């Protein structure tokens, strides 16, 4: 009956003394991560295969639609990359968000950095 009243934490602790469980639990995170990275390698390989074999044009500056949008006479972005219109539509500014991190830390939350 005692076991049934244990909190989950107590339960885990009770289990933790068994070497078998300790090993399994450590391996699970590692296993999940290894599985994920294996999947990543396969997806990455397909990306480079498509780049080499499916896409006819392989440099951004050679994309005909890129050349059209930056066309010096009629292009929508005729003043070129980093030009006036680009600056307005395609560039941005960033915001210092460190205050909310400081506030969290002062509440006693420990973060990794």
């Amino acid at each position, binding site marked *: 009956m005692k076991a049934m009243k244990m909190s989950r934490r107590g339960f885990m602790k009770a289990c933790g003394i068994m070497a078998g469980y300790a090993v399994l639990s450590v391996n699970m*995170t590692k*296993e999940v991560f290894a*599985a994920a990275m294996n999947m*990543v390698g396969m997806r990455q390989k397909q990306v480079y295969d*498509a780049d*080499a074999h499916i896409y006819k044009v392989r440099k951004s500056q050679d994309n005909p639609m890129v050349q059209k949008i930056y066309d010096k006479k009629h292009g929508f972005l005729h003043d070129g990359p*980093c030009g006036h219109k680009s600056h307005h539509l395609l560039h941005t500014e960033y915001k210092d968000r460190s205050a909310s991190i400081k506030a*969290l830390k002062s509440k006693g939350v420990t973060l990794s950095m």
Partner: protein
Amino acid sequence: MRSIEGVMYQGNAPKGVDPDSIFFVQVDTDKCEACGTCEEVCGTGAIKVINDDEIRQVVDPAACMNCGQCLVNCPYGAIYEGVSYVDELFEKLKDPDTVVVSMPAPAVRYGLGECFGAPTGTYVGGKMHAALRKLGFDYIWDNEFTADVTIMEEGTELIGRVKNAGKEGTLPLPQFTSCCPGWVKFVESFHPELLPHVSTCKSPIGMLGPLAKTYGAQETGTKPKKMYTVSIMPCVAKKYEGMRPEMDDSGQRDIDATINTRELAYMIKKAGINFNSLPDEDPDPVLGESTGAATIFGTSGGVMEAALRLAYEVLSGQKLNDPDIKVVRTHEGIRAADVKVPNFGTVKVAVCSGLSNAQKLCEEVKAGKSPYHFIEIMACPGGCVNGGGQPIDPDVRASLFRSMIAKVNRRYNARKPEA
């Protein structure tokens, strides 16, 4: 709450809400088994033990960069998404007065097929375009086009910083990429003093939204007000990015909705579309066409390689005969490389994925010890192909099966002494 490709979603489509107040991912405490995998993969320490049962939760939205790595790695499927525009999008697709525009990211086409039984990573770009058309999107525009535009903008910015280095009014080197909203929030939160190093370029989706509602509207004769732009991403953090208040340079909200690969697969299935029998189709003109340089944005090292394909030609004045720049291709972690460019010298670059790795490079730059011209950073290990919005790797949940056996054994063993 509903299950979408094995992940739970709240049907919450916020408008005009401060994205900093939203939990884009959160742990369902009823499903959490206290294994701690999420805490281990989280780069910032945002996900923590909250009670004596060692149940985890994201403690505050400010600490979470919305990368979703905890979610895709949880073996119990206990982590849910807090925002989903799927219902609203279905409504907009039905509405004859709304011109719905698709904007899918590069990495989506290397994950979507998996939801329909294709082997891991299968390229389904053509079928994806066909499926979007079948779903009723009016213009099939493609975020890969603006990946190419990003290279033009960000490459030009980099060349400017390199050529004018040290001159007054020039932004500093190294230049960091700015495509990944997980990384951008990270640097804004933890290293604001490095912000001048971050490229001023918006991400590809940050560029396609406003271009759709200006240039795209012009070219197609559409009223920008009638347009509903849908960002389709391998990502959770892109939902946050789409909601950033400043993303309204077109005069409207630049991005009306953001969904991810899993949600797109769900919509295709829900609409009864037989994905595997679809033909390969092209995107629509003006904002659709793309290159190999754009598609590699989906993997760690891709933005770097694409930028170098431009920088090499501009700096050297010569044609780059072989576009493969394999030294920057990075499976995981950090990679540094020297790229020799004729008539210029050596371009020094670093590629990095995962936020704890990003932290190391940030410290280096702060200490004035960073030798690089250009640094690419992605929050997700391996880049967006491994994004928080991608289909769940069956092997991650397979380890759940193993862990369930472990748990059963554990319970059995724990009871034994009592018996």
